[in-house]
């Protein structure tokens, strides 16, 4: 026993190395998958406030472009106001609000890694919860995976484990969108049935099946469709509508009915 201890002590350098590497690898694998990242994310106010101080200094550089973007979006939204429409149908339409949008500013963002994340300056204090969808002014941007009091971490669409349930706008066909290209502009549409032929600039939208994104949010447009013979399912390249490189303002989507829908689904399973 004593010799064992002496042996261990003599090799403490190697042993310590092995232990620390095992701990590191454990940490890596634990947060690798979507669900792992969801369970073990360490979003804290410390890192958040560092990034937001820094982006507070640098955001002035892009003020002009940001203003243009926001003005464009305002114009789009005004077009959607009921006052912009001539009411010819006098029937009363009852509407319940389904989604609430929480505006947020991106304080840190990566686009060129194998797995990309963003951090935004809204947290649990503002009603952000895990697994809420995040959209830019144009279309989908990511999913919230970690929340602290004032900040939240978002798994960007540019992440290996990101898979969004989508629909081809023209035909309504269900497909999935994943990211496997290393290119921050392009993603892949998978699970396209063989009878469907996609063309350049066909629009892909969210299906609304996942309860994370509302239906009909634009994901991107088709770049090319590589159809192989004798294959049941084909894949296509999609160009994201959101420019992740310059993303500054996003909206976190709070699906108000999600708890109700979730409990209904759980009832069905049990």
């Amino acid at each position, binding site marked *: 026993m004593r010799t064992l201890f002496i042996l261990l002590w003599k090799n403490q*350098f190697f042993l310590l190395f092995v232990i620390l*590497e095992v701990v*590191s690898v454990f940490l*890596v694998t*634990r947060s690798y998958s979507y669900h792992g990242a969801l369970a073990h994310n360490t979003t804290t106010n410390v890192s958040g406030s*560092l990034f937001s101080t820094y982006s507070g200094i640098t955001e002035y550089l892009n003020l002009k472009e940001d203003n243009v973007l926001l003005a464009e979006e305002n114009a789009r939204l005004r077009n959607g106001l009921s006052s912009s429409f001539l009411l010819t149908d006098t029937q009363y339409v009852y509407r319940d609000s389904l989604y609430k949008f929480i505006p947020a500013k991106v304080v840190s963002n990566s686009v060129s*890694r194998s797995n990309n994340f963003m951090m935004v300056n809204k947290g649990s204090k503002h009603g952000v919860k895990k697994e809420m969808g995040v959209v830019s002014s144009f279309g989908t941007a990511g999913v919230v995976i970690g929340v602290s009091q004032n900040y939240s971490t978002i798994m960007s669409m540019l992440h290996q484990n990101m898979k969004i349930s989508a629909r081809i706008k023209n035909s309504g066909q269900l497909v999935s969108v994943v990211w496997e290209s290393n290119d921050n502009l392009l993603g892949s549409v998978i699970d396209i049935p063989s009878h469907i032929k996609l063309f350049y600039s066909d629009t892909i939208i969210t299906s609304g099946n996942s309860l994370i994104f509302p239906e009909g949010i634009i994901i991107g447009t088709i770049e090319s469709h590589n159809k192989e013979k004798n294959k049941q399912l084909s894949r296509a390249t999609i160009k994201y509508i959101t420019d992740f490189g310059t993303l500054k303002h996003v909206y976190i989507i709070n699906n108000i009915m999600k708890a109700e829908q979730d409990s209904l689904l759980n009832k069905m399973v049990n």
Partner: protein
Amino acid sequence: MNNIFVRNIIRFVILILIQVLVFNNMNLGGYMHPYIYILFLLLLPININRSLLLLIAFFTGITIDYFTGTMGINASASVLLAYLRPGTIRLFFGNHDFSSKEEPGLSSFGLIGFFKYIIVLVFISQLLLFFMEVLSFNNILYTIQQVILSTLLSTFIIFIVMLFFGKRAK
């Protein structure tokens, strides 16, 4: 002793901040990711206790991981670097006798020696880092391309930093 301690703490804070705020946002051609914070590990005193070196490296890596949200990736690369550092120094400068407080640098290793020391350790740690990040061997050529270009860039930046702030060769 005190002087070395304070100097390294300051170096740690500055390099972590620069890494997290500047270099992590740098995106050169999509595959060059400079890792400058490892300069802190490379510049710890030559005769530092090896186990202490491992623990410091782990802590440094975890700190970077904490800010980038990539738990364990930088930690594993830093620990590997710390593990190979004493051997690398012995391999390149085995016949030298360094005083206990001496730090690696242009004055102690010489221009060529310091360059070899940096490029070898940076390459190995970034090799592990990028493969840890992808966790697969698909796209292996792309990953290797990333490793090589990032190593060259990191080495270049570290060298420039040392020329400006390091002690000059005698």
